């Protein structure tokens, strides 16, 4: 049994940590306050080439294994969750189906520019009445000659309003439920494809999240992102575990950023003549936070390792997502307590972490859904 990162992974962690410290951390506050897509940082950061993290070197990627990818997700989220969310969308969910099923023409038009940050992308499945319950998807795709016609409205779409192309989940047959779902590529400029309402969010600000409207959007046949029709859910399964563990890694990024703030405060704030880090109740908080963060990371990196080794990981990924996110919520809460009333002040960072942490509750499945899902696997159908 070997729990250590390889020398390469350790080195990667160090480089990405430094890069995030230099480029992202100084901008985090501004990103949160402005709540606008940080174009300047996007350009500077994506120039470095990280958006091709998971894809083969032959097409300009880094071919990073899932463990290495988690290191990246954690660090970028430590810098700014709002920015991380946009970056990771281009790295993972927004490009995966194009990479997997797109024609060379489509890849040239969408994937390769997205890997360089020249195009912003998104993946959309959530609707007003469907999220974790994919079978309730109401967006339809109807074949008309050699074209697909898409109709529907998607909600909570990360990068949606600024995306150059989107991978859209739609059903070819409402009566089939989850078995009628497929992914379709829709590019900006296609008639009938337009952004709708932008959501004003509590946290994760700087990522533009909103509605996408598809009104008789006609796309060519080859824009079906799948080798076979109606296998969308199966294809989604190929990255679902990684998406969940990624969410867990982002949670650890936020937790670490908050924890560091707590540490600094505990070492400097004086109460009753001593820095507050001298008091047992404050020390206990750090012991608890560090323990649970360590436990979260063990879950995250062991699940990532299983994905890498192509071992069953559905349960472990769900566990990691749930546990790490809950730990993150505890940590951001404790840190605002350590900061006393200052934890409530918008002037300081703890409140931002406190708000950001809640965003991760929903992505990759709410914990209510995840617990039900895990319980079903553990108990079995009876």
């Amino acid at each position, binding site marked *: 049994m070997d729990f250590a990162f390889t020398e390469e992974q350790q080195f990667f962690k160090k480089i990405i940590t430094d890069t995030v410290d230099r480029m992202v951390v100084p901008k985090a*506050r501004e990103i949160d306050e402005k709540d606008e897509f940080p174009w300047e940082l996007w350009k500077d950061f994506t120039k470095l080439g990280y958006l091709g993290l998971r894809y083969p070197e032959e097409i300009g990627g880094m071919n990073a294994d899932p463990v290495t990818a988690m290191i990246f997700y954690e660090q970028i989220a430590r810098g700014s969750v709002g920015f991380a969310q946009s970056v990771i969308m281009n790295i993972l969910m927004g490009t995966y189906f194009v990479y997997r099923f797109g024609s060379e023409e489509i890849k040239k038009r969408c994937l390769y520019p997205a890997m360089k940050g020249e195009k912003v992308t998104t993946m959309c499945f959530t609707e007003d009445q469907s999220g974790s319950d994919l079978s309730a998807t109401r967006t339809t795709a109807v074949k008309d000659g050699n074209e697909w016609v898409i109709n529907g409205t998607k909600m909570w779409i990360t990068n949606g309003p600024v995306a150059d192309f989107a991978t859209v989940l739609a059903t070819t047959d409402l009566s089939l439920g989850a078995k009628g779902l497929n992914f379709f590529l829709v590019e900006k400029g296609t008639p009938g494809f337009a952004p709708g309402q932008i959501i004003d969010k509590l946290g994760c600000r700087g990522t533009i999240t909103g509605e996408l409207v598809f009104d008789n959007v006609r796309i060519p046949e080859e824009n079906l992102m799948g080798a076979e029709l109606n296998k969308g859910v199966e294809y989604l399964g190929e990255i679902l575990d990684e998406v969940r563990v990624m969410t867990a890694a982002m949670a650890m990024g936020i937790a670490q950023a908050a924890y560091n703030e707590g540490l*600094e*405060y505990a070492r*400097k*704030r*004086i109460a009753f003549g001593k820095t507050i880090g001298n008091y047992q109740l404050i020390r206990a908080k750090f012991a608890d936070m560090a323990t649970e963060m360590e436990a979260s990371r063990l879950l995250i990196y062991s699940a990532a390792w299983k994905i890498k080794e192509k071992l069953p990981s559905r349960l472990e990924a769900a566990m990691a997502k749930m546990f790490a996110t809950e730990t993150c919520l505890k940590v951001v809460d404790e840190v605002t307590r350590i900061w006393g009333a*200052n934890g409530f002040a918008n*002037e*300081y960072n703890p409140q931002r972490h406190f708000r950001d942490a809640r965003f991760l509750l929903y992505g990759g499945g709410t914990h209510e859904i995840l617990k039900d899902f895990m319980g079903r696997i553990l108990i079995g159908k009876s």
Partner: protein
Amino acid sequence: MDKVLVFVETKGDEPRKASMEVLCEAARLAESGRFSMEAVCLGAVSDVLKNRLLSCTHKLVRLTDPELAAYSPEGYAHAVAGHARQIGAGMIMAGATGVGRDFLPRTAVILETGIVSDVTAANWFDDPITFVRPMFGGKVFAEVACPASPVVVTVRPNSFAMDMPEGINGEYVEVAVGLQAGSIHTRLLRVDDTRKDAVDITEADLIVAGGRGLKAAENFKVIEDLAVVIGATVGATRSVVDAKWRDQADQIGKSGKTVSPKLYIGAGISGAIHHIMGMDSSKVIVAVNRDPNAIIFNYANYGIVGDLFEVLPAMTEEFKRHKERV
């Protein structure tokens, strides 16, 4: 008895202050009988300068050579090493000035010995003698011994007291060094004396900062006046920056800059944790505030309870007077 050779750096008619401190320390050591002393200098020596130095050292040697007209690390290193070898010096000591720290490591290599750089104190009567020097930016100090001989030491300015010895009237000698022609590979083309921009606050050695107690933007003049006299950079608290009395670039604190100068003087600053987190690693903190219970006093070395509009101008005047004295 070991001989201490003091390298004296000069500028016009003046010895460098750091050199004088080392010279005074060496004179004290000579008086104690622990060492004998000799000073060496390399530039032009006027009568004024000569007389001043001879009252502090038993012997002053000026090393002469056409190649030593301007400073060069190679030339100075060889000249001082050669002389040290000639007189059998057991220690070479100099101020840890830019020049001292630049060429003396080379001297050490020529003499196949070690150097202890930037020391802040010495335990002369320990065996072996140890020197105290800061590491990790002053987070810790090390006591360093030098088993090799002679030991080369550079001393941080302001480490030794400059108490002039009495009753010394040393002899003056000039010694030709005879450096090989062409042995110097650097050439000073010009000195660019254009005024330096104000030191960025994160790098400033001295900072005078003001807070809400200043009451208005124009009142920062009392802060600026003091800063000009001591060559400090002006800092400000967040509330002052928010009120647009000062530029964002001056802001010290959690959402501003983190500073750790040698001296931080804060006036009209209550000591909000925001500000404290940006300056509490300053070496010496002086706080001026009307309120004797202001939190900043918890983090300060020295506190003056009073009206900053009286105290600061008085400090400015005192610093002016102090500068004239030195």
